[in-house]
């Protein structure tokens, strides 16, 4: 199992993402520079957090035009497993690989805290190592994390099990529609979430709950 972690100019969480992937038993991980196109030998892709291309114009808007993102879009359309975290989630929405968009937090402030994240759908490639209804303790750190999709789209997504993760305990940190923390595409092989599972993989930092998402992706390959 070899994870590829995409790095754009302005990405800042790629090293934590690589370390998180490497904590999965039997897994390796490597960085993928945005200007490259090759996904040879890559079994799953992670688009990590940060400020790709300085968040210019709109968060995630420019990154989607990078050569590597064209390869990632092809990889996804062929059924490859792709996880977008925070800015990676924003990039996947802008690229049209996930429905909806991320808007500025309702409070307009940068939020940085540990949140409870409920696993709504435990049958995806990203959550199958979790129990249904399990609440994961994972940090968020973002200014533009308010998930939005039109009402009709949200209903459709609910019906297809695409609402994978929700903020638990009335702890919605950003005003997301329906407390949504993470969504998948209809096929279920692409997921984005605002919380940072890669920052919750070591007991030293308080929680290892984030690791289950990376473990799930490895299980999905077997």
């Amino acid at each position, binding site marked *: 199992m070899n994870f590829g972690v995409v790095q754009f100019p302005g990405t800042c969480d790629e090293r934590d993402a690589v370390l998180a992937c490497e904590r999965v038993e039997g897994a390796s991980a490597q960085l993928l520079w945005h200007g490259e196109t090759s996904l040879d030998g890559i079994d799953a892709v992670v688009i990590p957090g940060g400020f790709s291309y300085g968040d210019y114009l709109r968060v995630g808007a420019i990154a989607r035009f990078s050569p590597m993102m064209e390869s990632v879009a092809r990889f996804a359309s062929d059924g490859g497993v792709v996880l977008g975290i925070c800015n990676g989630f924003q990039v996947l929405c802008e690229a049209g690989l996930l429905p909806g968009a991320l808007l500025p937090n309702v409070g*307009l402030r940068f939020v940085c805290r540990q949140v409870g994240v409920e696993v709504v759908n435990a049958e995806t490639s990203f959550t199958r190592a979790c129990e249904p209804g399990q609440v994961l303790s994972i940090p968020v750190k973002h200014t533009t994390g308010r998930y939005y999709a039109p009402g009709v789209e949200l209903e459709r997504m609910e019906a297809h099990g695409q609402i994978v993760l929700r903020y638990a305990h009335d702890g919605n940190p950003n005003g997301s529609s329906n407390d949504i923390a993470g969504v998948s595409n209809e096929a279920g092989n692409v997921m984005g979430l605002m919380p940072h599972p890669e920052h919750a993989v070591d007991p030293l930092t308080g929680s290892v709950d984030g690791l289950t998402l990376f473990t799930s992706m490895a299980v999905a390959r077997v």
Partner: protein
Amino acid sequence: MKARVLIRPKAGILDPQGIAVERALPALGFSGVSEVHVGRLVELEVEDETQLEDMCRKLLANPLIEDYEILVGS
């Protein structure tokens, strides 16, 4: 030719920046202000203005969350 694209939050989508500005104005003594929305202005020099619509849809705005208005000429 010069063109300007005005981009604003789509009607009906909560605009916390607009609300924050609207609430700040009375504190400075300005009254009777409502419906404040904060958006973006993109200025361009274009050879073919017919491409602007496409540029807006594909990059300058995200039509899911933003409305845009194209102004051509000075």
